[in-house]
């Protein structure tokens, strides 16, 4: 079943700003295989050296790797360093 687009999504589409990031939207940046930046997250769900799970607006993001550690956590910005093997995005069920 196809999900109905929200009014904000429809507005962005109308204004041709689909590719631009909006405030409060989660941004995930991967730098090589050693660092990942998650902006606008909603808290850490799970934290370990091989698995870091972060809650975001639409679900959760799981970073899997070796020797993972948080390099920095400032407000809603989170920098995870280590050897990243896999990033999993899990959408919340509506």
């Amino acid at each position, binding site marked *: 079943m196809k999900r109905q687009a929200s009014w904000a999504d429809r507005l962005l589409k109308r204004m041709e700003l689909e590719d631009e990031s909006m405030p409060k939207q989660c941004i995930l940046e991967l730098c090589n295989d050693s660092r990942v930046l998650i902006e606008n997250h909603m*808290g850490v769900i799970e*934290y370990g050296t091989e698995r870091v799970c972060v809650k975001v607006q639409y679900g959760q993001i799981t970073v899997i790797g070796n020797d993972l550690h*948080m*390099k920095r*956590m400032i*407000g*809603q910005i989170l920098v995870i360093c280590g050897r990243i093997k896999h990033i999993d995005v899990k959408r919340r069920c509506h």
Partner: protein
Amino acid sequence: MWKDSRIAGQIVAELTSADIPATLTVLQYEGIEITDLRIKDELTIILSIHKSEWNHLCKLCKKRGEKIEALSHRGILSHFEGVKKRPILIAGLTLLLLLSLWTPGRIFFVRVEGNTTIESAQIIETASYFGIHFGASRVAVRSEKVKNAILESMPSIAWAGVNTYGCTAVITVRERTTTSDNTVSEGVSSIVAVADAIVRNMTVLRGKGLCKVGEAVKEGQVLISGYTDCGLMIQAQMAKGEVFGETIRAMTAISPREYAFRTQQTGVKQKLSLIIGKKRINFTNSSGISGTGCAKIYEEKYVSLPGGFVLPFAIAIEQWISYDTELCEYGNAELLLRDYVKYSIPLKMVGGKILAAEETIKAYDGVFLLSGNYHCYEMIGITKIEENMPHYVKND
């Protein structure tokens, strides 16, 4: 940026919690910045936070029943905080800073230059009354005022000047010179022969001539007397005139056959000394006597402050350069000896020239010996002060 940087100071802490992710979420919502977060074990993490947020974190942990413990401090400011516990060091550094600001504008040493007969201490004492003393401000020194004071209190000084170089004040003086003409201005004097001679020319300007042209005179004989018989009385005065005559001068000169000259450098030795004011501290104790095969380069490097202020501290560097020497024979020793005699004989005369010479040069063991007789035409009269003046003589 200041908050982010580690210059401001960070605390490395160990946090023990039953639910680490929940704690991190709370910290996130409280806006506490966390860096270098590492897992120690399942319940413990090690994190770094800014020093200003430490109390906030402690309160949060206490409220949540978690344990937090500071492990170490990082950052430059944290290191400086350790200095706070050392008051003597702080006092010393403060004193050093104050001195470095205060000393360039002060006078700590006074040097006198150009004096030969007047004591330096006397000049320094006079200058001290007019602002040049230990610790005096350089700005307050009025060169003109000190100069006038020195000239007024010491008539034997013709000129004086004051300059400051860093912490040293240099008083440069010039003493009055007295001409020899003024010394013999009074009394009775005669002109006597300086050597055995035959008088060839004679001019009497004052006094009475006691010899004639063509006459042979002996050394010390009075040629022009200061006493003139005027019939009723004897006039005593300073004799004045010129007497020229022919003399014979004997001269002997010796020159070595060989001389040593430096060929190639064999080594360099450096000696250091520390100069503090007028004191010198030698770091080496060897003597400064050098042979013919050794050259010396001397250099003084003074310490100066920004702005060109020279402090009275210097490092003296002496370089002793040793050379190989080689002996070489004089090719023109006879010429050198003749030249030497030609220039040295006129120096012994009051005034005159060599008319003829009879010279013999002989070579002895390692030396050349020149002996000769020189026929000269020279001024033979010199002034002699009469010490015992008779009571009946009337002085003009």
